[in-house]
């Protein structure tokens, strides 16, 4: 027997070293990537936009902690996934939405979509997207009333108008369409976190650089929108910068839990998102289709995973 033996030595299975990436770090990286868009939302829509996002974050964290306390599960709020869901939900709302509606949305996202299905990693659809759609269906008017930019005081009765896609959808006053530069910077009407393409692009590049996401989904998604627009005689630049494409492609469609696991599947998933987005935009009654497109593809994810089998080393398909 040696001097150091049972009791003083930890005996655990290999490997004995691990990468320092953990779930919290990944969520933190996504939150960092969202900071530019968060700041831009304040510039574009005023302090109320910031407050609305913060409300969603707070509500999501409280709902998660409360629900886990009630069902006596270990709290997972320190993994920051509830903070992220809150941020993404906030980004998908018009900045003038009543605060209580944002709280209802947070409830749907965290309790109904995430926790009832078993918590992180178990939900079939993206919580923020599903919550946004539930709100859209339940509160159609406030969810489609778009304050226009530069309302620095951001009160509820600020000037509102149509989003660029709304203008396109009505097809009446195409001259009112913003310049592509305004679109790129985000000084247009829309959900508070989705308008600034440049800010979202920066965040997306950060995520790819940090290897939090693979470029496959965003490239396939945005590429499909671009090509579809080109083929149908639309302005492709307008379509990739307008509406929720950037936010959706980099931050919502890339949600690990609800997107396919193999790169090949991710590409199909991204193409599907792009196609559905454009079909809804051009032929549907809603001006914007990103949320519906992602939700539909979320639902198809298990099928995509099932169809795309993998060939292992040694040549067996699994």
């Amino acid at each position: 027997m040696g001097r150091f033996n049972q009791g003083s030595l930890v005996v655990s299975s290999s490997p004995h070293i691990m990468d320092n990436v953990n779930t919290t770090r990944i969520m933190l990286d996504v939150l960092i990537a969202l900071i530019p868009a968060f700041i831009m939302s304040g510039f574009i829509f005023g302090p109320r936009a910031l407050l609305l996002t913060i409300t969603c974050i707070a509500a999501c964290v409280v709902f998660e902690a409360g629900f886990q306390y009630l069902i006596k599960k270990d709290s997972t709020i320190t993994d920051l996934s509830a903070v992220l869901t809150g941020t993404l939900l906030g980004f998908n709302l018009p900045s003038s939405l009543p605060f209580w509606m944002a709280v209802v949305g947070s409830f749907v996202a965290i309790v109904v979509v995430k926790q009832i299905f078993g918590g992180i990693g178990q939900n079939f659809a993206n919580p923020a997207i599903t919550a946004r759609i539930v709100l859209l269906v339940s509160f159609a008017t406030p969810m489609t009333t778009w304050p226009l930019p530069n309302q620095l005081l951001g009160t509820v009765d600020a000037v509102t108008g149509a989003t660029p896609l709304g203008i396109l959808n009505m097809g009446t006053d195409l001259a009112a369409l913003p310049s592509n530069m305004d679109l790129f910077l985000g000084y247009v009407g829309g959900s508070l976190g989705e308008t600034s393409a440049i800010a979202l692009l920066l965040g997306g590049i950060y995520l790819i650089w940090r290897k939090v996401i693979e470029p496959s989904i965003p490239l396939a998604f945005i590429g499909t929108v671009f090509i579809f627009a080109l083929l149908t005689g639309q302005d492709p630049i307008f379509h990739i910068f307008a509406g929720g494409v950037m936010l959706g492609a980099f931050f919502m469609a890339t949600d690990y839990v609800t997107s396919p696991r193999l790169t090949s599947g991710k590409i199909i998933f991204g193409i599907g998102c792009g196609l559905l987005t454009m079909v809804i935009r051009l032929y549907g009654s809603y001006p914007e289709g990103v949320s519906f497109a992602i939700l539909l593809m979320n639902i198809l994810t298990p099928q995509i995973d099932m169809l795309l089998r993998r060939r292992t080393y040694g040549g067996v398909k699994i």
Partner: protein
Amino acid sequence: MSIFSKHLPAVHVEHHKYTADSPTEKMPVPDKVYISMAQHIGAPCQPKVAVGDLVKVGQVIGDTEAFVSAPIHSSVSGKVTAIEKNLTMSGIWDLIVTIATDKKQEVLEGLAPPQVDDKDSFIKAVRASGLVGLGGAAFPTHIKFNPKNLDEVDSFIINGAECEPYLTADYRTMMENSELLVNGLKNILKYLKIKRGIIGIESNKAPAINKLRAMVKDTPEIEVMELKAVYPQGGERVLIYETTGREIPIGKLPADIGAIVSNISSVVALETYIETGMPLIAKKVTVAGNAIRTPKNIEAPIGTQVNQLIEFCGGYKRIPRKLIMGGPMMGAAIYDDGMTVNKNTSGILAFDEESASVPKETSCINCGRCIRTCPMLLMPALLAKAYEAKDVEQLQKLNVALCMECGCCSYVCPAKKQLSFTNKLGKRLVMEGGKK
């Protein structure tokens, strides 16, 4: 093979090769050695000595008639003081021969180079040398070198990857025993009638690559191949793929696709036996980790206790909380520093409290990292789910048997799930399920 690259997936782990430039030091013979009779996969040896016998260096002290086995030799001269059952690292009760050393290291009289002139005498010599897979698996070498379809084997691959962090013993062997290595390989090619010899070395060992390349520049049948310095280049299936581009079909052996793989130290030990008649009695071991005062490469007699090696390194610098036999990716945590150096020991690592802590497992977030990383192109996240559901059929469908427990999946998992360990359990479950 992935569509985008001709390499198998791998992970970048920090190398921590701090002892790369520490020449091997021969440690003094300890007062006692404890030599296990089960140092290989297969049938354990029967002791060929009795308590009270005097033994010399190189004397056979354990052997068996069983096919899957290799003899065991005394690493010291001295007196057998005990032959007792003891719990080995793998949790099996086994016979341990204890020898009190006389420190004279008298070599067995009549120890002479073996007569080798053809394949059969060569294979006989391989067995007599006591060689087993020295990298970890400890499979008797004379069986591995003599597959049924030896005539189909066209490549003999030496694993100089040493992809495990911290370990540098193979690197030191390549630098210090390069003659033995090259001559050993030449003999292997000659007697086994294999066309091509490949030494695969990771790019982070440039001096060894250069040295060996210079030595074989007039030997066209031997090639020194530079491998990317990623983990696990040294895995048998990975190494064969990276050096020859061949994959071993499921259920087949390396020889079926024309390859035999061996470890650096095995070839050197074999050539030592062929040239001098001295069998495998000592091992080069890297002793490292942040709880060791002066990490070193040590040549230690087989049967030396771990704490003696650590003593030779100046002892513990901090209170050790984890001791590992082997490398940090695949080595086994041991529960007692009184355990001994065996034929297949390549490293001893000691870590302090902080490095020993095991992170808490959280829920799988379906990030796909494990799937992207698995060198065998398995789907560890799904395997883990199948194991949790005790779904034998699904485990088989997902081909759990192919998992080499390299640990890449566990290494990258942000939820810190013990995926490779789960696969080990999964394999066991499939085997038990198959028997019913």
